[in-house]
C-alpha cells in the first residue's frame, strides 16, 4: 500500500483528500504546514507528497526545495488553485502538477502516473 503525505493549510481539503485517497487504497497522512510536514517526513517513510503551493504564511515551493535537497527520491505533486506556478522556476522541481478541482479524477490519475514512474525507477532492471 503506497503511503501519501498531504500538505495543505486547509483542513477541509486535507479531509477530502484523506477520504478520497483512502478509498483508492492509499494510506494517507496529512500536515497543515511545512514544519509539520518536515517532522512527519523525518519520522515516517512516504511514497509520495501532495503539496499545496500556497501554504499559510509560507511557500510550498520553499518546502519543495527542502524535500528535493534532503529526500531527492521522494516524488512530489504540486496542487495549486491557479496556474501561476509556471512563473516560478523552482516549481519545475516537482514530479507532477494538478490544478485543484472538485473532480479528483485528474489528481488520482496523476498520483498513479507518478507512483508508477517511481516504481519503475526503483525496479532492479531500471537500476542496471
Amino acid at each position: 500500500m503506497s503511503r501519501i503525505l498531504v500538505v495543505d493549510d486547509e483542513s477541509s481539503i486535507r479531509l477530502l483528500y484523506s477520504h478520497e485517497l483512502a478509498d483508492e487504497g492509499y494510506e494517507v497522512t496529512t500536515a497543515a504546514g511545512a514544519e509539520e510536514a518536515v517532522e512527519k517526513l523525518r519520522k515516517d517513510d512516504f511514497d509520495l507528497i501532495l503539496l499545496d503551493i500556497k501554504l499559510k504564511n509560507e511557500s510550498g515551493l520553499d518546502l519543495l526545495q527542502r524535500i528535493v535537497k534532503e529526500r531527492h527520491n521522494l516524488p512530489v505533486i504540486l496542487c495549486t488553485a491557479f496556474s501561476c506556478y509556471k512563473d516560478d522556476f523552482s516549481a519545475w522541481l516537482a514530479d507532477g502538477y494538478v490544478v485543484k478541482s472538485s473532480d479528483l479524477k485528474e489528481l488520482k490519475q496523476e498520483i498513479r502516473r507518478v507512483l508508477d514512474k517511481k516504481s519503475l525507477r526503483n525496479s532492479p532492471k531500471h537500476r542496471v
Partner: protein
Amino acid sequence: MEPECCWTKETVTAAECPFISPDETDLFGSLRRRLVAKCLECPRFAADLERMAREGRPEASVMRILIDEFLLQKSRLDTMIGFLDSRNMEIQFLHEIGALLQTSLLELDEVLSVALTAITAGKGFGMNRAFLLLADKERRTLKGSLAVGPRTYEEAWAIWEEIGRTDFSLKEMAKHFHDTKLSAEKDKFHDILERLTVPMDDQRSILVRALQERRPLLVHDAFHDSRVDPELAHTLDVDSFLILPLLTRNRRVGVIIADNFITKKPITHEDMRSMETLTFPVAFAIERASLYDRLHEDLRKLTVANTRLQEQQELIVRLEKMALLGKVTSSIAHSIRNPLMIIGGFARSLLRNIDENDPKKEFLETIVREARQLEDTLSEALGHADSMAPVLDQWDINELVGNVFGEVRSRAEGEGIAFTLDLAPDLPMIRMDYRQMAYCIKKILFNSLDAMLPPGELTVTTRIDGDDILVEIRDTAARPARGDGDMFSHPALEKRDETENLELSFCRVILENYCKSFTVEEYEGKGTLYLIRLPRKKEEEHHE
C-alpha cells in the same frame, strides 16, 4: 602772334570754341575750367603751341612738357576713379547680397537661388552660367545640386531680353528665380549636374583640389590643361571657367563653377577675386541653411519620439493597471477555488456512496453540477488573469530606482523639492516583476510629492542589511499623525480620486507579495520613511 585757339580769352562764344557741347555752357565764362577741360586736347591749342615753338619761344617746350604730364596724370586719375567706382559698386553689391543672405534666408534653395543669380545676373558678376556642387552630409561626395543659365544661344537671347524688359533688383531676381525657375533649371541641367558629381577624396579632380587648396582656380584652356579631367572639360564644353570653393572655417561646403558659355568673354583674375569675395557669405549661408534644415529634421524627430514616448507611457500605465487587475482577479479566484473544491469534492464523495433511490441524490447532483460550472467559469477567468500575471525575472534594483528617479525628478524639481538618490554599489540581482515594482516605488514617490511643500526633501536609498536589500524612501512631508501607520488608509487619501486610492491599495498588495516586509514609519510633522525589505537569496547570488 595771334593765337588760333581761344585760350587767351576769359570768355568765349560758341562760335569761338566749337568743342563745348550744349550741356557745358558754364565753360564759356571760365577760362580756368575751359583750359583744363577742352584747350589741352584742342587741335587749335596744339597748333598754337607748335607755332610758338617754331618762333623760338622757350615757354612752348615747357608748356608741352607740363601739358603731357598733366594729361598722363589725368588719365591715371580717371582710370583710378573708374576702378574705385567699379569697386564701390562691387562692395555695394556684395553688401546687398550679404545682407540678403544673412538676414532673411533660411531655406537652402533660397540661398542657392541668390548665390547663382548674383553670379549670372548682369547687375551681379554677369557670368553666363553657374553650377553649384554641394558636399553631402557625410562629406564624401560633391554632388551637382543646381545650375543657372542658358544652354543655347536662342535661350540666352530670350533670357537677356526678358531681363531687359524687367527692372528687377537682385533680391527680386533671386525670388523670381526661386519661385518660377528653380525646379525647371534643375531639370534642364540634370545631365550635367549628374556628371559633375565627384568623390571628395578624388585627388585628381580639380574641383576637389580647389577645396583642398582653399583657393579659387581659373582655367583658360580646359581641353589642354593637365589639371582638368577631359571628362569635365567635355561636360562643361568651354575653354575657360572658374572654380570657386565654398568654405567655412573648418568645413568644405561645396564648389561653384562659373563660365561664359555663350559670350565666350574671357574671365580675368579680377573677376575671380571679385567672385571669391562672394563665396564666403554664400558658404556660411549654405551651412546655416543646412544646419537649419537639420535642426528642423531633429525637431521633427524629437516631436515624433516625444509623441511615441507619451503613447508608450500611456500604454505602460494601461498595462500596469491590467496587470494589477489580473493580480486581483487571481487572488479572488484563488480564495474561491478552495472552498468550491471542498463543496464539490465532498458532494461527489457523498454522491458515489448514496443509494440510487435516495431523494437526496438529486440535491447532491445539483451541488456537483453547479460547483463544476463555477469551476469552469473560474478557470476561464484565471486563464485571462494568467496572461496579465507578473513576469518574474532577475533585476538590478539600483537600475530600477534610477529609472524611476528619472521619471519623477522633473516633477520634484518643478515643485521645489530636493530629490536625491543614495544607491549602494554592487547590489545583487533580485527576483521581481520590474514593471510592478517600478509602479509601486513611483506611486510612493508621487504620494510623497503630493503631501510635500517646498523646500522639501525626498531621498531614495538602497543598501544591504544582512540577508536583505533595503529600499528606503524618506520624505519630509508634514502629515498629521495617524494611529495605524498605514499610508494607504489615511483620511487625506479619502479626498483623492478613487482611482488613485485604488492604485495605492494595489501597491500594498504587490509589495507584500514581493517583499520580505513593507513598513511605513511616520514622524509626526517631520516626514515618513517607507521601508521595502527585499530578500537576497543565496541561490540568486550563484547565478551572478
